């Protein structure tokens, strides 16, 4: 048995398999599910969750977490709307830059509190979850804009959100580019490998001279920027924004990451896995009504998927540990 890398890990293959089964069953019930429009919608819906999950993966690998993603996304989506309320003709690129910058600032706040003040990320981001959401509502009431509608935004912006390139939704392309870039850094750059080291054993990382604080801050900023991007894309895609965009999204993101095989205690997992997890959860959401399950059950199914995958993790881990022990004993006679 060798440990060489394969293009997809066992876990990722498992998700692909689950996806295929789910799609096959759902398509058997309603062939339209796999139609061009059905697939288009599926990937479009999965794209924003994928962006969030890829950012979250970076954090979870380092033994951190960001519960404020939903609020940060809400804030940046609302920012996009506010920009158009102020100036109907703002170029798309300016909105994107503004949203990404605001997300990065939110991430920097989280990261600074975690890295410098040494407060656990779970607590810090639970706090900023409420703070960012509060700012969002405060901003809405201060400016008297309860809601921004599609007719208030520029046609260019809306077209950007719903457009396609060669039949592939633009949002999906963006998510794929981000995914490939993050996957590449995590696999082949020293800084990427150091994130795994920090999450796998913080003490050993310190002894190895890895600047953990700097790396963790950077990861919060990058992840926040991705959330900011997702917020702007959300605004462009849906065209209607109020101050509660993204509420509860953090749960779906963490679920996607964990289902995708990123160990919640850090040190292992891939962005590819998290993206597949996001795709699987989105597919489940889309498939439930077709399979006759009321949409109200969606949360329960998401949760069950999460529990199932954690149980699988434990089982696989236990088997791996006993196999490693056996190999070692065999070698030592």
């Amino acid at each position, binding site marked *: 048995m060798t440990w060489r890398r394969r293009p997809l890990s066992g876990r990722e293959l498992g998700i692909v398999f689950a996806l295929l089964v789910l799609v096959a069953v759902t398509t058997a019930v309603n062939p339209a599910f796999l139609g061009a429009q059905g697939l288009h919608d599926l990937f479009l819906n999965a794209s924003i969750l994928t962006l969030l999950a890829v950012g979250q993966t970076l954090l979870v690998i380092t033994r951190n977490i960001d519960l404020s993603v939903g609020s940060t996304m809400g804030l940046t989506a609302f920012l996009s709307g506010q920009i158009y309320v102020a100036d109907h003709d703002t170029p798309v690129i300016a909105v994107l830059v503004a949203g990404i910058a605001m997300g990065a600032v939110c991430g920097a706040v989280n990261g600074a509190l975690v890295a410098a003040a040494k407060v656990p990320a779970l607590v810090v981001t639970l706090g900023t979850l409420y703070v960012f959401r509060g700012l969002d509502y405060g901003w809405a009431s201060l400016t008297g804009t309860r809601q921004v509608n599609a007719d208030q935004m520029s046609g260019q912006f809306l077209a950007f959100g719903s457009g396609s390139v060669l039949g592939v939704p633009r949002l999906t392309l963006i998510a794929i580019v981000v995914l490939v870039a993050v996957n590449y850094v995590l696999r082949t750059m020293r800084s990427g*490998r150091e994130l795994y*080291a920090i999450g796998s*054993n913080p003490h050993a990382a310190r002894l*190895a001279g890895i600047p953990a604080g700097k790396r963790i801050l950077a990861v919060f900023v990058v992840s926040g920027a991705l959330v900011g991007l997702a917020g702007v894309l959300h605004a462009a895609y849906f065209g209607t924004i109020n101050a509660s965009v993204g509420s509860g999204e953090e749960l779906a993101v963490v679920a996607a990451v964990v289902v995708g095989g990123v160990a919640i205690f850090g040190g292992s997992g891939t962005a590819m896995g998290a993206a597949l997890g996001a795709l699987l959860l989105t597919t489940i959401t889309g498939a439930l009504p077709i399979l006759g399950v009321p949409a109200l059950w969606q949360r329960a199914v998401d949760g069950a998927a999460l529990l199932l995958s954690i149980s699988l993790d434990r089982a696989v881990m236990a088997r791996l540990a006993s196999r*490693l022990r056996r190999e070692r004993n065999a070698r030592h006679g």
Partner: protein
Amino acid sequence: MAEAERAPRPLLELCHITKSFQAVQALRGVSLALPAGEVHALAGENGAGKSTVVRIIGGEHQPDSGVIVLRGEPVRLSSPLQARRHGIAVIHQEPVQFPDLSAAENVFMGRQPLRAGRRIDREAMNRRAAELFERLGVPLDPTRPTRGLSIADQQIIEIAKALSGKADVIVMDEPTAALSAVEAERLFTVARGLAGQGAALLFISHRLEEVYALCDRVTVLRDGALVTSASTGEIDRDTLVRRMVGRAVDHLFPEREPGSGPEALVVRGLNRAGAFHDVSFTVRSGEIVGLAGLVGSGRSELARAIFGVDGRDSGTVMVNGVLLPAANPRGAIDRGLALVPEDRREQGLVPELSIERNASLARLGAVSRHGIVSRSSERATARRWGERLRMTVGRFTDAAATLSGGNQQKLVLGKWLATEPSVLIVDEPTRGIDIAAKVEVHSELSRLAAEGLAVLLISSELPEVLGMADRVLVMHEGRITADLPRERATEETVMRAATGTVDAA
């Protein structure tokens, strides 16, 4: 000077290093020179300051005063990274690995070979790791994760790390503590090879036979000060042991008639794989039996298994003729056994709870009626034991964390005494508390023994064991290697048994 011309300039020199942690003076002006091609042993009892020397060389601690000279230049080692950049590698007693990452990545973390575009060259990394493992005589698969590797294999990875970083000052902190004889011999071969290629090695060990088998020179630390530095050819074992223990036993300990009551604690053939083997002994009522041994010899593990915190593979424990169920602390308490654990902060107290709450935790049954805890009864218990142990306490409702180390220890002791045990096991009862509190803990233990309690006293401080115990059991590598009556128990006989120098049993 003629001598300076003869002797090559040492690779690393420590000059008059001092270091203290709060009130504890860990190092008092220690000087040490490590020439290239030499294996240098650093010996001393637990707490003599060996680990502090290791940490200072490794850049984990900075000295309060003194100079570190590397290849003739004074240097500041302000972080582990800097030490590593200066060619210093520390191999820790318990290797620190990234269990999720491959063996090769563990070796090269932060220094992975790169290809164009700053990409990690995985092929080259795995190949070089495989070469290093080959050179060290252990063909590990460089692509396997390090989770599940034996300590010996993990140390090989640490050494490979040192070699790959071109380190020429290599510190090994008790590397053989967890190794089998074969693994240790393999490590020695590697160490000799490294010295032969011009590295300077500092080897920390408790095992005197290893010091003589491997090292060219030996330096002895005691209480943070340098006692002796000599070539291993010039100093014999007996002298070395004497230098290690050195100090006179102080007369701080209460006088007491040795106990001779009925057998209160009887341990027969106790085994736990990897911790201790075939341990049998008895403690009589009214007797204080000391359990000595070096850190890692299995003393605390033994105590925990007797009490039932940990399980045991075989063997029996009886208290007053009644068998204790395995792995059942509640059952042990009910049958009259109490354990005051080693680490009072972690295992003995709930620091956030009030003093009186802590005092009654082990016997909530006695202070409650129908499952409801009575505050007044709780308070009365705390008062009674507080006065008896002369605790200096402001209010019994204050959090236990507000107490001084000595008073915390008394609180833990009182908590267990409140269960009215007939056998008391105390693990390092005076570690980290001041002299005055120490004396009080000692006299309380004496008084309890005089009242008929059987006491098993585990301690790394030899003077404490020798001063308090009627009989001294010595553990070495999980076995009891000596059972010495008070008259025959001296620092030398205990140290010999603890280091496995002679079989004194």
